[in-house]
């Protein structure tokens, strides 16, 4: 009996299937990991740990579910577990908006470049990317995962519910609250006051 194989729970056929899935999904998974963690080093760790666990439990993977959804379920868990392990993680106060200037300066920064004229090539500036990432980093983990899966991965509520092992109602409320928080983080207090 092969001890290593027995322990890993992965048989030969599964192994080649798994390897193909790694090759197919690692870029997408990395991008999600980056948006969750906010930096390359943590994204790298998170992606590797996610695939490692996926490998260990590959015999339990139900093929009726898209692999990505199953992978994000693992990733969400690893992400939350790892964050809780760290004694201090950088969560800025939710009430405190990110300083990105105000008025026209802010309007300009938050503008989508060439959105209508050439949507294919419209990428956000590095500066805006950073501002949005900082705002994402400030969200509580569950809200952050929901927002990223919905708006960056473009997943449906049902898929998100599957990936986060929660109900549709929970997905709805996490997205609602997550987006509200995100917006408040991107809006200077003066604008908020003017609004209400």
């Amino acid at each position, binding site marked *: 009996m*092969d*001890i*290593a*194989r*027995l*322990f*890993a729970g992965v048989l030969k056929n599964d192994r080649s299937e798994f*390897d193909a899935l*790694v*090759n197919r999904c*690692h*870029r997408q998974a*990395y*991008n999600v990991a*980056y*948006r969750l963690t906010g930096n*390359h080093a943590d*994204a*790298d760790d998170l*992606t*590797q740990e996610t*695939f*490692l666990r996926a*490998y*260990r439990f590959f015999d339990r993977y139900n093929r009726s579910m898209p692999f990505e959804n199953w992978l994000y379920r693992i990733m969400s868990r690893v992400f939350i577990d790892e964050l809780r392990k760290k004694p201090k993680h950088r969560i800025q106060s939710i009430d405190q908006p990110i300083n990105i200037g105000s008025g026209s300066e802010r309007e300009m920064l*938050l503008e*989508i470049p060439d*959105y209508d004229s050439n949507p294919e090539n*419209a*990428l*956000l500036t590095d500066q*805006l*990317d950073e501002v*949005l*990432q900082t705002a994402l980093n400030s969200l509580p983990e569950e809200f952050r995962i929901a*927002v*990223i899966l*919905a*708006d*960056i991965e*473009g997943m*449906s*509520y049902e898929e998100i519910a599957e990936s986060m092992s929660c109900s549709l109602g929970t997905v*709805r409320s996490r*997205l*609602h609250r997550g*987006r509200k928080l*995100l*917006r408040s983080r*991107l809006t200077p207090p003066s604008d908020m006051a003017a609004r209400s």
Partner: protein
Amino acid sequence: MNCRKVNHLLSAYMDGELPGIESLQIRDHLNSCQACCDDYNELLHMKRLLGRLKVQTPVHDLPVAIFQTIRVDSELASHRTVAARTQELANGLRAAVGPPRVVAIAICAAGLVVFTFASRNSDKVHSIGSWDHSTPPASEFTAGIRYPDPQRFVSTPSRNTPGIRTLDEVSFTGQSYRWPDDRLYSRRANTPVSTVDYTQFGR
């Protein structure tokens, strides 16, 4: 529908996740209420911003690193299993036999058998190679010495890391393991290194 209720459903409306009737009610409300309409546009704007974020790509060959992580993990797992089995066997013997000296001999014998079995097994793919201790003598591998010659690292050809031949091409970030069999284990494959700090391996 009042503004409060609409506001609560805007997010789901935007995602197209509301049932038809509710969706129509919201649309009607947005046509007639400027405040909610502004809210909606802002939500939509933010969703588009997020959708336009750059796709971040891995800074190194991620599949190679993942396969490496898995290989090392499987190797560690098999060693853990061997250790656990030896312990189990010892416990069983202690229960059956009793006297400590007999138990000690039995444990050694069982360990030897299991270890032989395991090392035959681990020759396949898991380690990335081993150190050639014939030259220089093993005494030079004392703690603290940086040993500069990557040629003395003899790599084990493997299915998943084809082409790794010298330590220059082997890469790792610091979490390394060394088993009594003198193979070098790397937890992750990230940054290329040209020298190895032997203090890590505690010989």
